[in-house]
């Protein structure tokens, strides 16, 4: 089992996510991360992360390619791509020490504080999935009341 990344270009029509995701459900594969964005052309790009062996990954690529609204399925090598995740963190009321700790770690990781009111704050971070996990762990998960994550967005490093 290896981490697989598909970048799927498809028509931006209702139901397209369901058509894509049911290919995974049917084969009992869990999707680790799924993000959708609209390209300048008006087409949608779905980026999917999942674990599968070679045979299953290739079968899924063909199954998804076969779907009517799908235009192209790009298989992205995690080793030669840029992976980012954005996370918004909302804390509970903090004491002064905790406040400084959160601000310190967020700023050290290149993030920023978006809102603060009373003793609570909202911070933004971006980075690899692992980087973000690390920051949350360093601060201590009990500090956060809500964590909103974008899922992983990926682009291959290749330039024309």
């Amino acid at each position, binding site marked *: 089992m290896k981490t697989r990344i598909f970048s799927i270009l498809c028509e931006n029509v209702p*139901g397209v996510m*369901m*058509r894509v995701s*049911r290919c995974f459900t*049917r084969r009992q594969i869990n999707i680790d991360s799924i993000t959708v964005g609209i390209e300048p052309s008006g087409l949608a790009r779905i980026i999917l992360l999942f674990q599968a062996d070679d*045979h299953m990954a*290739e*079968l899924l690529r*063909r*199954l998804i*390619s*076969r*779907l*009517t609204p799908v*235009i192209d399925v790009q298989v992205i090598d995690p080793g030669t791509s840029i992976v980012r995740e954005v996370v918004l963190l909302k804390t509970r009321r903090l004491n002064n020490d905790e406040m400084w700790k959160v601000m310190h770690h967020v700023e050290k990781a290149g993030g920023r504080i978006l809102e603060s009111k009373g003793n609570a704050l909202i911070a933004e971070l971006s980075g690899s999935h692992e980087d973000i996990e690390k920051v949350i762990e360093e601060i201590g998960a009990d500090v956060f009341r809500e964590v909103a994550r974008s899922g992983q967005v990926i682009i291959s490093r290749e330039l024309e």
Partner: protein
Amino acid sequence: MVVMTGAKAIVEALKAEGVKHIFGLPGGAIIPVYDVLYDEQEIKHILVRHEQGAAHAADGYARVLGKPGVCMTTSGPGASNLTTGILNAYMDSSPVIAISGQVSTSLLGRDAFQEADMLSVMLPITKHNFIVRKPEEIPKVVKLAFEIATSDRPGPVHIDLPRDVQVGEADVQIPANVTYRKIPKLEPDVEEVRRAVKLLVQAERPLIFAGGGAIWSGASAEVVELAEMLGAPVVTSLLGKGIIPEDHPLSLGMLGMHGRMAANIAVTECDLLLGVGVRFDDRATGDVRYFAPKAKIIHIDIDPVEIGKNVRVDVPIVGDAKRALRAIIDGLRMQAVRQRPSKWLERIEKMRKELAPRMDYDEVPIKPQRVIKEIMGVLNDDAIVVTEVGQCQMWAAHYYIVRKPRRFISSGGLGTMGFGFPASIGAKVACPSCDVIDIAGDGSFLMNSQELATAVENDINVVVCILNNRYLGMVKQWQDLFYRGRRSAVYLGETPDFVKLAEAYGAWGDRVTRPSEIAPKLREALKCGKPAVLDIIIDPEEHVLPMVPAGGRLDQMLT
């Protein structure tokens, strides 16, 4: 551009696709379209008695004609009753266009009366499906639906048609064609063909395994030509029956769980297997680890998903079966003269003779093998044999000699009991001059016997030959063989009286209890000028043998 209602637009769009028949049953949410059909001369609507019957009839129609069959229903239960038939068509790659009414767009998602989320329900069981949002979209959607249903690997397409879209008016134009993004890869890859030719030249024991894809591609002549050129025997899947005349010296018949023994042994012994339009279904392959264990495998299929899905493949050829076989034949012609595999052909000939199945039983109660023999004796090569599902189907598949493609129609992938009778109605509508027989079991026939009314009212004179053993026979067989004879919930009792049932509908009915009566009664049924039911009382203890137990090896058959 002409201003018309969506209902008018859908009928015009269907006519533009050459649709001549619709199998359907109206209801509240599709009345606007039926109101247009009321004046329609070019399309004949055949009113079924249950929507499942409409889907199977459209499927049977499509399989005989090689063109899409159309079915139409109302929303909610009407549409959901289509699902088994649509899934059946999907599993067997049959181009069915299903159109169902839907509640008005303003009511969507409010659990309105007879609202069902058919977009979601149909999504996993169609090749593609649509919900139309505006009347002006209709012509394009219909055009696309037919394009999708028939291009590359065929399959069903569902169109959900909200009521306000049918009633609303718009400027519409029936497009001559639409841009469909998926351009199928029809031409085989030259390099793969070259590799295939090389393997075929080297092979000492080549074998062709042809299926439904070869039938859809119209590759019958190419399969026979290649077989004769190579001296390669041909085995088929259930859906491949008829791709080669089954009395051809190189035909070994169907392989698999209830296949011919010679076919299964040939698969096990061959050193090269050329799969054409097959998906290596588990009922065909048995345990894949022992499927063609000595062979290199070449697989021709138009759907890349099928390549390597179930069995390892040495040479994959993605493309149209007919074109790929033609390319292989041309490639072989350029090779130096190849020795005919005479030892292999001797072996095949010997197996064909020694393992030919026995059918000449005279016993009473009648043996089902004898029934198939008698039916074969009465019907000509153009007759269409449709089957129900279960023992009756496997007896037909095992014993019946089919000589032409599209003349043996059966529910393969889904194994849908109740398919045969409505499908035979569709088959007869597709080919009114053909004799059409439904080889049925009593259990299967009862699942859609209400369509006798459809057949009688529309003068669709098909003959149902019930192999009546008063059991859900295939389940009983498994219970006998694998569950110590504990026949749980398989005895159907003595009801109904199928002759009276036929007569109640105004059909012809008669009962057969002796082998000698089968042929004369069948001839009478075919000539009676009505739909007919022949209730043939068979030996309830008879099993379909030989048999490869589920997951077993093809060369280890129970006999």
